[in-house]
């Protein structure tokens, strides 16, 4: 800042000062002109970047859509079930990146069965690396309870990392808006998108659980974890949202774990007495078929779960799993 004495202003100074004043006025005027908005904001809603989840499904193989392995050891039944569908090599190719979406909804210990079994998740990771020759495997979910706690207490974080997977927690910047074509509820809604953007394959892993509102929580309900925002309002129309999620997510493979089934108090459980051994593990490329079979382990039928018929109507899969000729096997 310059200091000026009390001297009289000369002509030269006056001109300089007038010039500066002119520039200031011109600058203010230009900015005002450029930013002038005669209409005001339209709706108050910002235009979000819209994304669409890619289709992760693999080519259909007749007679190898669904397999059901019986046995008490998840690692063995999993290997058997996948082998029956043509092996992990059918689903994961050399150098691919795989996303695994287990149910990690609750901060609850593995023995209570409210979340996907950590050993099962780890085995899928191992298979992707060892036989599938995957380049990278990520394990991710947007849980209901505190995300970091869910991955820690469920044991999934540790087991999956030990098997070489990267855990991706649902940070805010990983969500993007989407609109489901033909959907009624998923309109301009944030989904957990970024982790799935650059992967080649998607595998869902879910336990079979009782769910008071939806009837049952299985592989289709598992995609709820991809929703962001205030997703709880969709409970008003639970069947439609589950069906729409199944329309939105086209996985490579789903694994439905009925080794221990949560018969009561779902989907949180909270007690070992809520669980019942059914020693069944289902692998399928058709999540509607997998869930249609899975609900029988809860003593339910397809007509009890409206979302199954809804998804079938939308051509997501078939509720008549018998027509797929599922391959049964028992691991002793």
């Amino acid at each position: 800042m310059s200091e000026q004495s009390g001297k009289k202003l000369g002509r030269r100074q006056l001109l300089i000062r007038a010039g500066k004043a002119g520039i200031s006025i011109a600058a203010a005027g230009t900015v005002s002109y450029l930013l002038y908005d005669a209409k005001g904001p339209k709706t108050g809603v910002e235009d979000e970047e819209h994304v669409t989840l890619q289709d992760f499904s693999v080519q259909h193989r007749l007679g190898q859509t669904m397999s059901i392995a019986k046995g008490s050891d998840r690692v063995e039944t999993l290997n058997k079930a996948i082998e029956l569908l043509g092996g992990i090599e059918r689903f994961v190719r050399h150098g691919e990146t795989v996303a695994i979406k287990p149910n990690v909804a609750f901060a609850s210990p593995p023995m209570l069965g409210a979340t996907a079994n950590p050993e099962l998740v780890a085995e899928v990771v191992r298979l992707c690396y060892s036989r599938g020759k995957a380049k990278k495997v990520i394990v991710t979910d947007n849980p209901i309870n505190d995300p970091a706690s869910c991955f820690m207490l469920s044991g999934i974080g540790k087991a999956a990392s030990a098997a070489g997977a990267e855990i991706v927690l649902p940070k805010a910047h990983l969500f993007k808006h989407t609109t489901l074509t033909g959907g009624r509820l998923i309109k301009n809604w944030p989904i957990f998108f970024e982790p799935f953007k650059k992967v080649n394959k998607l595998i869902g892993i879910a336990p079979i659980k009782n769910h008071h509102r939806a009837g049952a929580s299985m592989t289709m309900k598992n995609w709820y974890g991809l929703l962001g925002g205030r997703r709880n309002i969709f409970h008003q129309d639970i069947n439609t949202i589950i069906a729409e999620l199944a329309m939105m997510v086209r996985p490579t493979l789903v694994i439905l774990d009925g080794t221990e089934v949560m018969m009561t108090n779902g989907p949180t459980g909270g007690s070992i007495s809520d669980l019942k051994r059914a020693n069944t593990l289902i692998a399928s490329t058709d999540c509607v078929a997998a869930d249609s079979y899975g609900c029988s382990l809860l003593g339910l039928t397809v007509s009890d779960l409206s979302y199954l018929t809804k998804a079938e109507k939308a051509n997501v899969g078939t509720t008549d799993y018998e027509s797929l000729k599922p391959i049964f096997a028992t691991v002793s």
Partner: protein
Amino acid sequence: MKIIQARRISQVFFFLLFVWFCIVSTVGEKLWQLRGWPVNWFLQLDPLAALGTILTTHTLYRGLLWALATVILTTVVGRFFCSWVCPFGSLHHFVGFWGNRRKSVAQKIQLNKYRKPQRIKYFILVFFLFMAAFPSVAASLQVGLLDPIPLITRSFNLVLLPIVDRSVNLTSVAGRFYEGVWVILAIFFTTVFLNLLIPRFYCRFICPLGALFGVINRFAIWRIGKKQLVLRSELLRRVANECINCKLCEKSCEGGCEPAGNMMRISECVLCFNCLDDCEENIISYQTQPSLAGEITNPDISRRGFILSLASGIFAVPAVRLSNKLGSNWYHRVIRPPGALAEKEFLKRCIKCGQCMRVCPTNVIQPGGIDGGLENLWTPVLNNRIGSSGCQLNCVACGQVCPTSAIRPITLSEKLGTDEFAEVGPIKLGTAFLDRGRCLPWAMDKPCIVCEENCPVSPKAIYTQECFNTIRDGILTIKKVSDNTIETIEDNLSLGKFATGDYYCVVEGDERRKIVANTENSIKISPDKLFEKIPTGGSKIEVQVRLQRPYVDIEKCIGCGVCEHECPVSGKKAIRVSAEGETRSDDRKLLLKH
């Protein structure tokens, strides 16, 4: 190495250590997470926290034994904590130094002189200690409001760290939120900026911990002072350096203890050693003898001031409690973390350090406001609207980290009421109350039960009863029935509205049937269950919605607040937890024992 360089290294080291402990107070097993880091160490070194809780509870809670080490070391070497360890002190030291570095020597000497108001900190100390000391009146531990270690701990953990972490998300996926902490921020920055006015403003005038050290300092074996020159001959004595009263030693004096003056103020000396470094005549030394110039060992407080602050302290607690927040007027939203002591005992221990709020993995523990009473300020309170999921069932982190056991270090078995605690049952934080005027199935005939789904108790504390309500304009007139399709006279039905799986229809005297689809003028029922007796045209059919209406079983509810957190009625929640029924206090019980 000069001693002031050693001091600077020590200050930087302890300051960084403090910041590190703030960062690693995140539940987890990684190197930068909690693991076994002694994150309470600075709070435990704080003799004021120890003394305060000793006065209120007559016990010294385990980790606080570290304070004894501080006291012992202070009585040997003097008030080292202020200039060598205290992270708050180091911050003030640096800002005060940096902000005034351009001033002339004369100005600096003027700046760092002793000021009469330095006695205020002693009054503050006396005030707080007497607030805490008289259980017959009412003991309340409020010293944490101004105790520098809790103050900087909560300022860093609840304000600075969450702001910085927004960009890196190291400590939390979703970012941390703390209600009303702008007050903490304002106080923190005010204390920091006051250093531009007078260096170490807070330390000199306000700090009650410094005051406590000031009192202890009189016993210190080593202290700063002018050297006693012991010289054999008169000749040597003449040529030897003597104090020329240049006052350079007061140029950077951090405590304002006037080493150049006639009387050295021992209680104010924060042991910065700047005088030792600045004295060109080598007169100032760190020694066991009293200063040659004489010294004032006691704090500069008058008897009148002492008695006034003592009396105010004793008077303050009953005055604050006139609101009866500990009695019938208790505030129902003061929901304490699991393991918190009964309110009176709790207030005897909580130093408002915010460690529980920092460590809580779900971010549900919040600094309390004054609507729960003045004493409630910055004490831990659960707010289920903030954070990731109410109080997490399988977590006891807050009690493990609490440095004073205001929240007891409970085990999971005790919290959940399992194993040896099966008979006592789980710890209840409060009770969830349904607001039927806001609840979707109760007030709006919309299916929902998100609260039931998320209730983590087994069997669930939230249960439902099924009912079928005829919807608005839901009585229709049948035109014709063919197979599973019912044509209606009305032709203004909303297309597909009844196809969600939640709608049913019933003809009088017949069973209820599930609707699977509808057009503007027809309804399709599930083909699994067709009419045995086809209804005739002109008869009425009712469209009903199936509702599962939630109820709270107060014998099962533990008040964890997950239901409140998840309730989709997002403004004022339709299910809310309040502290009635909390285990910790008998006088807030709600249920009769069987």
